[in-house]
């Protein structure tokens, strides 16, 4: 009888122990990011809530190397996490998905920006360069079946030109005038497609983002009513203090929610 003993632990696909070396599912996650270009630069909004998945159960199939993970939902574990950070002089990075992977990405970018500054030669990394670097990193990890479980939004201004782009965990990368991650893609982007204009003022931009964030607050169960809006212009980055949106719960349908559901329990 012959059997193969996995000597090197690196066969990420076939080997049980190797699974602990690569990301299979996210544990601590942030929800949507919504970002738009406006007259002077880019605005990016995120809420400050972060969920933690609870009790994963994992079982292997009998003959086939077949795993399935069951989780018992998640808890709103952290309510004060900043998911939008300034990168260098010209960029803003927002992330949804696994927070630890976001922190890892921030470490990579920190090193990148440091080396860029060390050249001290009048050249600096702009948002386009950072976006492409991140695309390379994300795609590379995807190819090794060990993704950084994030969807990243990269916005910035350099030499008067605004830039806004997105990279997903599988390396899909593109630029647009407005981007969103996760649920934002389904709930916020239709609003933005209708109402976004190139010459939005700061106030109008914020109103537009708040409209999107309000819909997300009502309909995305992982969103909380505590958000931050970050702004980047040629002058630099400003991140607002956390604040809440006004909500309205007095709709008729909410008053007697079980009216149409006469049942035995």
């Amino acid at each position, binding site marked *: 009888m012959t059997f193969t003993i996995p000597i090197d632990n690196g066969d990420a696909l076939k080997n049980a122990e190797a699974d602990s070396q690569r990301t299979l599912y996210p544990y601590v996650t942030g929800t949507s990011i919504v970002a738009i270009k406006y007259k002077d630069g880019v605005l990016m909004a995120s809420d400050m809530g972060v969920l933690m998945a609870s009790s994963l159960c994992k079982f292997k199939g009998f003959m086939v190397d077949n795993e399935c993970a069951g989780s018992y939902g998640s808890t709103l574990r952290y309510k004060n996490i900043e998911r939008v950070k300034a990168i260098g002089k010209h960029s803003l990075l927002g992330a949804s998905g696994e927070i630890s992977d976001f922190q890892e990405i921030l470490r990579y970018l920190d090193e990148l920006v440091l080396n860029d500054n060390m050249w001290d*030669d*009048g*050249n600096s*990394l702009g948002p386009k*360069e950072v976006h*492409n670097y991140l695309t390379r990193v994300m795609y590379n990890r995807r190819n090794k079946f060990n993704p950084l479980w994030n969807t990243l939004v990269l916005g910035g201004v350099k030499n008067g030109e605004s830039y806004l782009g997105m990279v997903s965990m599988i390396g899909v990368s593109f630029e647009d005038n407005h981007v969103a991650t996760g649920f934002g893609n389904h709930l916020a982007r239709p609003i933005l497609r209708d109402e976004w204009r190139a010459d939005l003022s700061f106030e109008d931009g914020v109103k537009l983002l708040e409209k999107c964030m309000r819909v997300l607050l009502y309909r995305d169960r992982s969103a909380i009513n505590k958000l931050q809006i970050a702004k980047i212009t040629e002058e630099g980055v400003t991140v607002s203090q956390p604040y809440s949106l006004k909500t309205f719960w007095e709709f008729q349908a909410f008053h007697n929610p079980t009216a149409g559901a006469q049942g035995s329990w």
Partner: protein
Amino acid sequence: MFRNQYDTDVTTWSPTGRLFQVEYAMEAVKQGSAAIGLRSRSHVVLASVNKAQSELSSHQRKIFKVDDHIGVAIAGLTADGRVLSRYMRSESINHSFTYESPLPVGRLVVRLADKAQVCTQRSWKRPYGVGLLVGGLDESGAHLYYNCPSGNYFEYQAFAIGSRSQAAKTYLERRFESFNESSREDLIKDAILAIRETLQGETLKSSLCTVSVLGVDEPFHFLDQDSIQKVIDTFENVPEEEEDGGEAEAEAAAAEQGGAGDQDVAPMEM
């Protein structure tokens, strides 16, 4: 320079603090045929003299495109120059791939210089025997650098390297203050005139020189023979100005004495 007891190894210092092998490598650059670079605020022109081994062979390529925004002209051991051009192309394309934006010239030049320095500090290597005039464009404008076998690099408004480059340098020294504001056409004309200085009396023809340009909105490319000939015609047929006329005569006299040295150029140096 004369032979001495400290010149066998690149890793041996002389008592006066010199590395002779590195200096000998710089001599090799002086043996190659001339290469010239000049820059304005928005353009860089690289030009070289075409020298062929014999009438039967084609001339050696001395100017290489590294990227749309960077070109390099070499003088000295062309084989070393070819290898370094390949390195530069590789660095440039890797940067473009990762960052989707052109590699700043200053950073390329530092990497080249560091590579050259390594060869001055290893006993099993020899310094590169080629000088490189790197011209390029980045965020901060047009730049011209000279990379030396010693691992040093300098930025220039205009420079000439290779044999009889002193004549070209003298010409450029007279005019360099106006280069920053020069138009593209004037810059090309000055480059060809500087090439003419190195020919010392030989009639300037477009087949004798190679000229390349790069600038804002103009990727690196070579000028074709017709365009070069047109520029030559604008000044070759016109009686020269007083001061140029006087100097041309003096140089023609010197050329008769200096011309014989050509046959001593080693075949690997162009």
